[in-house]
């Protein structure tokens, strides 16, 4: 029977909640912009949320051991898997930054976190880059990572899938009954990703 580290589980769950909260603030800020709140207020909220997301991402990456003290020796497979994750993070940052800049700056410069129209060329370019980079890095990472790391990621993927299977029809039913707002695919995506990352990080261990 696996012993559960409650403190560690709590920290990771807290990270996931803060992540979703920051993501929620980004979307709320976008809605605020649409409803005519001042540009300065919206921009401040977007920037605060963006900084929060960056800080939490860094803490998460640190928990995964991708960055930090490098005194201890690292195996070739670990180094390779870290390099792939770093590459994926850089590509993600490039897409996110470029996407944010491609939107209408009156929206607070956060096209990534809204459903507002964007230029078709931006959608095609960032979509293609995202698909190619995510598929390539996923395959490379699965080949590079050791069996324990892969098992942890697979547990996270299963939990994420479970979150998707439960959340999507539940939200759809709620929306049809006018109990909740219409489903937003990016919020579902963020929740699934947060569950995936939290379970993966926890299963990976210290």
């Amino acid at each position, binding site marked *: 029977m*696996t*012993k559960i580290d409650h403190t560690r589980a709590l920290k990771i769950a807290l990270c996931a909640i803060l992540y979703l909260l920051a993501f929620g603030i980004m979307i709320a800020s976008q809605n605020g912009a649409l409803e005519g709140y001042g540009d300065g207020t919206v921009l401040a909220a977007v920037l605060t949320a963006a900084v929060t997301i960056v800080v939490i991402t860094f803490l998460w990456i640190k928990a995964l*051991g991708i960055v930090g003290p490098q005194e*201890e*020796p*690292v*195996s*070739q*497979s*670990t180094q390779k*898997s870290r390099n792939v994750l770093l590459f994926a993070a850089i590509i993600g940052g490039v897409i996110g930054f470029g996407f944010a800049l491609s939107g209408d700056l009156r929206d607070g410069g956060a096209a990534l976190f809204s459903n507002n129209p964007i230029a078709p060329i931006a959608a095609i370019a960032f979509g293609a880059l995202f698909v190619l980079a995510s598929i390539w890095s996923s395959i490379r990472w699965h080949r590079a990572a*050791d*069996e*324990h*790391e892969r*098992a942890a990621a697979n547990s996270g993927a299963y939990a994420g899938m479970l979150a998707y299977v439960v959340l999507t029809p539940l939200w759809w039913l709620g929306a049809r009954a006018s109990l909740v707002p219409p489903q937003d695919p990016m919020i579902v995506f963020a929740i699934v990703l947060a569950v995936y990352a939290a379970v993966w990080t926890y299963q*990976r*261990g*210290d």
Partner: protein
Amino acid sequence: MKNRLKVLRAERDWSQAELAVHLDVSRQAVNAIETGKHDPSLPLAFKLARLFDLSIEEIFDDQN
């Protein structure tokens, strides 16, 4: 699954990270195996056995 990995590692004065390099896995993987949270695959179990010059049964105990 119980195992003697921690003792065997200590006998050679290796850290978890050093053993991880020998096995080409992460330090977290070594920690997970030592604490019984992860049961290694057969290839990794054989790798461990060869590294310590023991049989798999001498390292792992599936009776508990």
